[in-house]
């Protein structure tokens, strides 16, 4: 056992850089002890270590709080000068106070993130930041100059390992309107990608997760986009065999609806007139027939709702002169 002395020795925490401060910010044990000469070594019961004044008594009102809690730390009742209470109150009493309160230690506290501390963080980070380019002041301009958007997720978790297998997934989003595609190329591209294209927002989403690393997945996604683009511009021989069932949109020309309408109209007109082709051309040029064509196309492409059905009804009434 070390020999006791009447001299009080101030227990400092771990020796750290700012030795000039008497009150150490990283003080682990939060008490100061003075051992008297008279206490016997073995007798624990009567040997009471004198507890010093808590730090809260010595804090000036205008102190620098960022020095008391410079980084995230558990709650220290002797370093926080607030009369907080936490816990369920006992019957006829109040919540337990902050001394030796485990509930206050359990919860995360943000005493190290006061506005003054955050200001200091910002000042420290400023030298590493660059200005936002002034030319990119609207979303539309950002989309115009940077049409491809890549989304990746980085994970932080508690534990000895940094790795998370979900971190390798890469989502690549691009609007087809920003790509240089003609009508055929656009239709072919949409057929090639299938469900990855959203018609409402005109965004093609390529999600890659087959490679083990994020960089590999990103390269693969860019490669897929390039290949899709070039392939959709090529015209293969078998594309000439495209049937009506393969068409993406309804077109009225050479459809059963056109044939039926023209038959009905020719039969409605004078029966003797055998015009044949000319009569059909003349009929097609009429405004009502064009209206009917528009309404049927709209109905087939957009589906049935109030607007389209109303338009169809009006067009039919006009065409059949009801």
């Amino acid at each position, binding site marked *: 056992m070390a020999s006791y002395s009447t001299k009080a020795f101030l227990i400092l925490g771990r020796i750290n850089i700012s030795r000039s401060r008497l009150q150490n910010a990283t003080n682990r*044990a939060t008490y100061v002890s003075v051992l008297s000469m008279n206490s016997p070594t073995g007798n624990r019961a009567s040997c009471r270590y004198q507890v010093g004044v808590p730090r809260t008594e010595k804090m000036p009102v205008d102190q620098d709080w960022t020095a008391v809690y410079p980084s995230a730390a558990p709650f220290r009742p002797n370093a926080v000068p607030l009369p907080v209470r936490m*816990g369920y109150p006992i019957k006829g009493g109040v919540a*337990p106070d902050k*001394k030796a309160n*485990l*509930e206050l230690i*359990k919860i995360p506290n943000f005493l190290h993130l006061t506005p003054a501390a955050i200001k200091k963080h910002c000042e420290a980070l400023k030298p590493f930041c660059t200005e936002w380019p002034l030319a990119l002041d609207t979303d539309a301009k950002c989309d115009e100059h940077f049409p491809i958007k890549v989304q990746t997720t980085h994970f*932080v978790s*508690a*534990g000895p390992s940094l790795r998370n297998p979900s971190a390798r997934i890469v989502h690549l989003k691009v609007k087809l309107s920003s790509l240089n595609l003609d009508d055929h190329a656009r239709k072919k591209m949409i057929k090639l990608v299938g469900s990855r294209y959203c018609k409402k927002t005109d965004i093609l989403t390529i999600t890659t997760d087959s490679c083990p690393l994020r960089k590999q997945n990103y390269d693969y996604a860019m490669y897929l986009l390039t290949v899709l683009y070039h392939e959709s511009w090529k015209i293969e021989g078998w594309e000439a065999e495209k049937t009506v069932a393969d068409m993406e949109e309804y077109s009225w020309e050479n459809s059963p609806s056109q044939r039926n309408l023209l038959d009905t109209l020719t039969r409605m007109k004078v029966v003797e007139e055998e015009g044949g082709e000319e009569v059909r051309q003349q009929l097609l040029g009429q405004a009502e027939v064009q209206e009917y064509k528009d309404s049927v196309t709209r109905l087939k492409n957009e589906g049935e709702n109030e607007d389209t059905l109303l338009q169809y009804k009006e067009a039919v009434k006009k065409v059949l002169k009801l």
Partner: protein
Amino acid sequence: MSFNLLQQHLICNGGLIVVFGVFFQNRAARIRVGKGDKPLTYEQAHPPHQIGHRKGWLSQHTSNLKGEGGAAERTTEDVFIRRFMFGTFHGCLANEIVIKRRGNLIIVCALMIQKLPPQKFYFLIGYSESLLSHFYKCPVKLEIQTVQDRPVYKYI
């Protein structure tokens, strides 16, 4: 589980008869009411169903979130750390140990009674920190607070 009197009577008559209407009393982490001289800390006074209502969690880490892995490893680490602390600071612990994790850093917060001289405390803190850090290959920090007596919430 404890049985009530009715069940015990049936067993000693011969054979084990399963009787409906017998209720089992839950004994998990509950200190039974005594004469009124048993001091209880806040932790001991509240049974486990109060966790999330009147009590917090002693150990918090991201592995318990949905879709995160490593929960079993963190739990075994916690169990070991609690036993280690109980044994190293024998008789000095005033309350349960709180374990926090931040990235790969493990912070062990403990409340101690002022039973040992401070030099011994410092030695034990340094010893625990270095041993646990080497053991888990992660920085382990101890945050010790000392009190004169065990904090009493109520007497049972």
